[in-house]
């Protein structure tokens, strides 16, 4: 859409929001948790903010004996419960008229025929213009079936001037091979630039703000290199266990579940060079460049750690250990905690370790990136004066309590010269809480607009597996995950891993 074509569009008119063109969304696995808690509320919130086109249609596909009205009721309930913005009858009316439900299983040809006729009917009655995004909110083992069914029934092919897009959720495979297979399957049906991989972390405001922080300011970038940075810690901790995800989680583990996608993406954004623009292509170029420069430590045994939580007390509640969780093999070697040291071989970062860690049943739920700076090369103060002074740090708090903290030393008031760490806080929570949109809102809108810069491309996914695969192989052959008490910050070995380098983990 060019501005010149539409007289009502003006580049200077910044109030007018980006509204998606005529389109519809088809959700496979619409009865799932993600769909009810995130996708449906996000669709409503988008409509409420006036960002969806009139006539936007939502099609659910699942193995339920539902009529369109039953489906609308389910969406209604989930919107009422989970939507971020207040419920408004007129918005609901706009949406509900475009809701359809197609019952069926994935290998059922009839169901896909019904889906096809539903889409054609929507094009006529709602003016969706043949533009549809297929959201595959289903376990990856069903991807090939769904995708080939879409192809078989001609649903993946777009007519002249319209589009068909596929949206897929992690996991994107469980190693390099499977990821390549998966990509081959999907790309066989959808063009690579019409496949959107959702990494909901990338839709978060704080994560987008990493780029703003680094490249819109002058005061941080000069320090953002090996001359000043001592090391970087990227943490994603969860306080919950595996919950009902045993079937998915066992055999996958935390490294594949989190490090391969979220943490490596955060690493890429933290460490990458300035992109030529914020277009999807320029971003993927820079991210890929830095991911290609990532190097694993030579001795994997010393610089990687995995763990498994055991029964304990978590925030006042008694919780089970991983091996006692329902549906888990009591001899399972799956890691629920993983930590590793990575290095980036380029001029900016040579010699600066990046420590990644993630785990379940840790102290509290937190995701953050901590850039820890070197100590001052010379201190005019006595050693006793600065005893309590740590290293300066800049912490990007991704969730919860989104914001940025800077830690530095300050003199304690009094007659003695005593310097202690203080923090300076910028809290999104203070400013933008009420209105900062959910990640899924942003990402769904981007899918409908065809804006790909917040989605990892398949090259990034494959390169991330390349980084992780050797670690997983090593773990398979050597030893067992170390046990750690639920509600703590992981196994002893993780602390030893950093102590070996003369460092320690931040308590996030």
């Amino acid at each position, binding site marked *: 859409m060019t501005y010149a074509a539409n007289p009502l569009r003006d580049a200077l008119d910044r109030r007018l929001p980006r509204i998606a063109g005529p389109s519809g969304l088809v959700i496979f696995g619409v009865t799932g948790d993600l769909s009810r808690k995130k996708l449906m509320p996000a669709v409503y919130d988008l409509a409420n903010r006036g960002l969806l086109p009139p006539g936007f249609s939502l099609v659910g596909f699942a193995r339920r004996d539902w009529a369109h009205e039953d489906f609308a009721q389910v969406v209604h309930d989930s919107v009422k419960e989970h939507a971020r913005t207040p419920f408004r009858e007129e918005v609901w009316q706009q949406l509900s008229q475009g809701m359809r439900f197609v019952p069926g299983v994935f290998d059922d040809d009839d169901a896909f025929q019904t889906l096809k006729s539903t889409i054609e009917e929507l094009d006529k009655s709602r*003016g969706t213009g043949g533009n549809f995004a297929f959201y595959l909110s289903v376990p990856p083992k069903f991807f090939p079936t769904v995708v080939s069914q879409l192809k078989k029934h001609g649903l993946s092919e777009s007519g002249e001037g319209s589009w068909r897009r596929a949206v897929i959720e992690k996991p994107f495979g469980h190693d390099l091979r499977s990821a390549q297979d998966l990509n081959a399957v999907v790309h066989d049906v959808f063009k690579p630039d019409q496949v959107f991989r959702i990494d909901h972390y990338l839709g978060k405001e704080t994560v987008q703000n990493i780029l703003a922080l680094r490249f819109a300011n002058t005061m941080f970038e000069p320090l953002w290199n090996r001359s000043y940075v001592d090391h970087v810690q990227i943490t994603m901790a969860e306080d919950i266990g595996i919950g009902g995800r045993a079937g998915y989680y066992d055999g996958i583990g935390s490294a594949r579940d989190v490090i391969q996608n979220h943490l490596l993406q955060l690493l890429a954004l933290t460490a990458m060079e300035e992109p030529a623009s914020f277009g999807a292509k320029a971003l993927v170029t820079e991210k890929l460049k830095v991911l290609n420069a990532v190097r694993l430590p030579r001795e994997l045994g010393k610089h990687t750690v995995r763990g498994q939580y055991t029964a304990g007390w978590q925030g006042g509640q008694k919780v089970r250990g991983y091996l006692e969780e329902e549906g888990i093999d009591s001899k399972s070697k799956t890691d629920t905690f993983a930590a590793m040291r990575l290095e980036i071989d380029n001029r900016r970062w040579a010699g600066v370790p990046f420590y990644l860690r993630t785990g379940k049943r840790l102290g509290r739920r937190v995701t953050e990136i901590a850039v820890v700076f070197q100590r001052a090369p010379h201190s005019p103060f006595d050693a006793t004066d600065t005893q309590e002074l740590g290293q300066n740090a800049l912490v990007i708090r991704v969730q919860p309590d989104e914001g940025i903290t800077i830690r530095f030393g300050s003199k304690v008031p009094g007659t003695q010269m005593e310097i202690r760490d203080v923090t300076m*806080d910028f809290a999104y929570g203070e400013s933008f809480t009420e209105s900062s949109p959910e990640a899924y809102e942003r990402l769904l809108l981007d899918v409908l607009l065809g804006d790909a810069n917040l989605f990892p491309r398949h090259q990034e996914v494959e390169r991330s597996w390349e980084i992780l695969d050797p670690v997983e192989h090593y773990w398979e052959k050597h030893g067992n995950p170390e046990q750690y008490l639920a509600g703590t910050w992981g196994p002893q070995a993780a602390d030893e891993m950093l102590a070996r380098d003369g460092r320690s983990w931040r308590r996030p």
Partner: protein
Amino acid sequence: MNIDLTDTTSSQINTTLVQARRSIGSPAVGMVLTLVIVTDEGNHYDALRAASDASKEHPSRILVVVRRPGRSPRDRAMARLDAEVRVGIDSGTGETVLLRLHGELAAHAYSVVLPLLLPDAPVVVWWPEDAPEHPSEDLLGTLGQRRITDAAAAEDPIAAIALRGETYAPGDTDLSWTRLTPWRSVLAAALDQQSAKVRGAVVEGEGYNPSVEMLALWLGLRLNVPVERKATEGPGITAVRMETANGELCLDRADGSLAELAMPGQPDRHVALHRRGTAELIAEELRRLDPDEAYASAVQYGIRQSKKSAGASRSSGSGSGPSGGRARAQAETQPEGDTAKQSPAAKKAAKSPTKRAAKK
């Protein structure tokens, strides 16, 4: 926390603010701007409530200037500043200071407000009603990057729009324009899918509603076609119709919340277009603090139109002034030749009307 200060000064208020923050245990200041609300005793409650709601999105220091010049000569002769400092839960996410300026001081609000502005942060001045003629030349107005007026609160809203156009300075904005954003975005999105040229347009709504006028001005400017205004019972704007070669494009909102969009060659669809409250409008205003050039060219379009027609009809002695109300609105329905050449995206083109108006 609520602290009352009687017969006080700006510096005492500043001290109180710092103390209040400390005593509730949050010495950090996360506020992004100062919002000055210039109002009177009767209206400050509603305005402050809207601003506090908006401050959830934009944490701000809100200064409410309540002028009480006094009714008797004795009242007018004295000068006193009373203040009410609110920090914490009752004041949204920022701080609020209610300033009551008694007697002679009422004319010198500037001296009270200046020391209370947040350092190095943008200032927004908002007149919920009774805006000055020249917002940018008003002493308080000069403090602000952004000056918000509301033509809908004026006695003659349509004349107020004309006045806003005449006295426009970068940074001015009017809530009657803000109220239009949802309408404008649906209309723009509708035209995204219509290649046929628009030949004429009609805006229907309450006769006294300044937003009807603003929308008509904007459409006239952008489409370069005659735009007719049609008075209806409301509420607000009730419909916009655009005549194209393929047929009529119509966005119809009879009930003030759910609209129907009818486009040639496409099924009719519903669009939610609810009427927003002041808090939402203020929140939208505070989102961007740079001059709104789209507003500038729309509001000044009316002035250039009426000047043109006034110039043409001066010989007959029926010069329709800028506050000519409906008569002027009729005169504007003539398309203007020189805007046709403006490329909508070209920055220069959008700026030139400003210059031209300034020269005149």
